[in-house]
Each structure stands twice: as C-alpha cells, then as structure tokens.
C-alpha cells in the first residue's frame, strides 16, 4: 500500500483512479488511511460482495485472501487481471503504469473505431452487387437449360 502511495501522482498523471477494496470494516479503513495518509479511494467490503464478483482467491491453508489487481479502461472493459498466488505476489507499479500508458496511446485506435472505418468503405456494396449479378446469371443459365 505504501508502494502505491509513493507513485500515486504517476497514476494521476495517467488519468487513472486507484481503488482499494478490502474485507475490513469502514473504521479499520478510516484508521489505516489516516495513519498512512493514503490518497486513493478505500472501499470496505465486509460482506465480500465485490471480492466474490471478481473472484479474489482464498487460500484455505493460509486462511486469507490473495491480493489481486484489475485494470479497467474508460469504456468499462477489463484490460489486465492479476491474481496473486501468495501474499507478496503483487505486480510492480511500473508494470501497471506502463499498461495504463498503453491504454491511452493515441496511435492505438480502439477496435470499435477501426470497425466503423472499414464499414464506411465503398467496397462492400460493390461486392454485394457483384454477387447478386453472379446469382442472377446462374439463374438465367438454369432457365436456359
């Protein structure tokens, strides 16, 4: 958590919000946030509703939940998921920051944008006309025999 706080300004620069979800109650969150002076959003989830939605793994032998990180882009799509295999299995901030930078890179048009561009081309109607013509020709051939 201290690791995240250290680089928080870099996440802000990437226009990203950091949201921390945990099983503790709001008092525990409030105390921890105040003591550690944390800048990000803290969401107590004592009933584990979101934890379950996102499938945070429970390690039965260690009686605890494993850490997990999910990056969600502006369209609400999951772009990165990391389920920790141990308590310390947490990706470095640099890894997450470079992924965020990639999401907003201007030279990577979204698939939706590409699709719109393709459908705007004049090739498709012409192809369809050719197909209709070919079919008509075949039918004419058939009628001739």
């Amino acid at each position: 958590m201290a690791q995240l706080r250290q680089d928080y300004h870099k996440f802000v620069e990437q226009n990203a919000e950091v949201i921390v979800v945990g099983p503790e109650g709001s008092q525990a969150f409030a105390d921890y946030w105040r003591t550690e002076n944390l800048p990000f959003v803290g969401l107590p989830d004592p009933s584990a509703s979101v934890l379950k939605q996102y499938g945070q793994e429970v390690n039965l032998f260690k009686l605890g939940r494993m850490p997990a990180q999910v990056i969600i882009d502006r369209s609400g799509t999951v772009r990165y998921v990391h389920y920790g295999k141990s308590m310390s299995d947490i990706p470095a901030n640099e890894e997450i920051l470079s992924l965020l930078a990639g999401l907003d890179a201007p030279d990577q048009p979204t698939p939706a944008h590409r699709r719109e561009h393709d459908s705007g081309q004049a090739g498709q109607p012409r192809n369809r006309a050719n197909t209709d013509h070919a079919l008509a020709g075949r039918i004419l051939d058939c009628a001739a025999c």
Partner: protein
Amino acid sequence: MPKVSLNTPAPNFALDDFTGRRVRLSDYRGRKNVVLVFNRGFV
C-alpha cells in the same frame, strides 16, 4: 470461483467508501481508467 476475463465488461459494483460516499465503478466510465486493488489486509 468465477474470475473476470480480459477484454470483457468489468462487473459493475456500488459500495460506500469509509467516509460514507457511494462509489460505483460506472462513475468512472468515459472519464478515468481504474486500477482496482484487492487488498489482503492491512499489515
């Protein structure tokens, strides 16, 4: 246990933060990328 998959819509959620402010994942749609961190406890 179900897990979220890449390039699929993230499940929306609504929770109150520790100050009582309601936070929805959908609040950030069209505005910000979100880094969702599932913490394992405060140590």
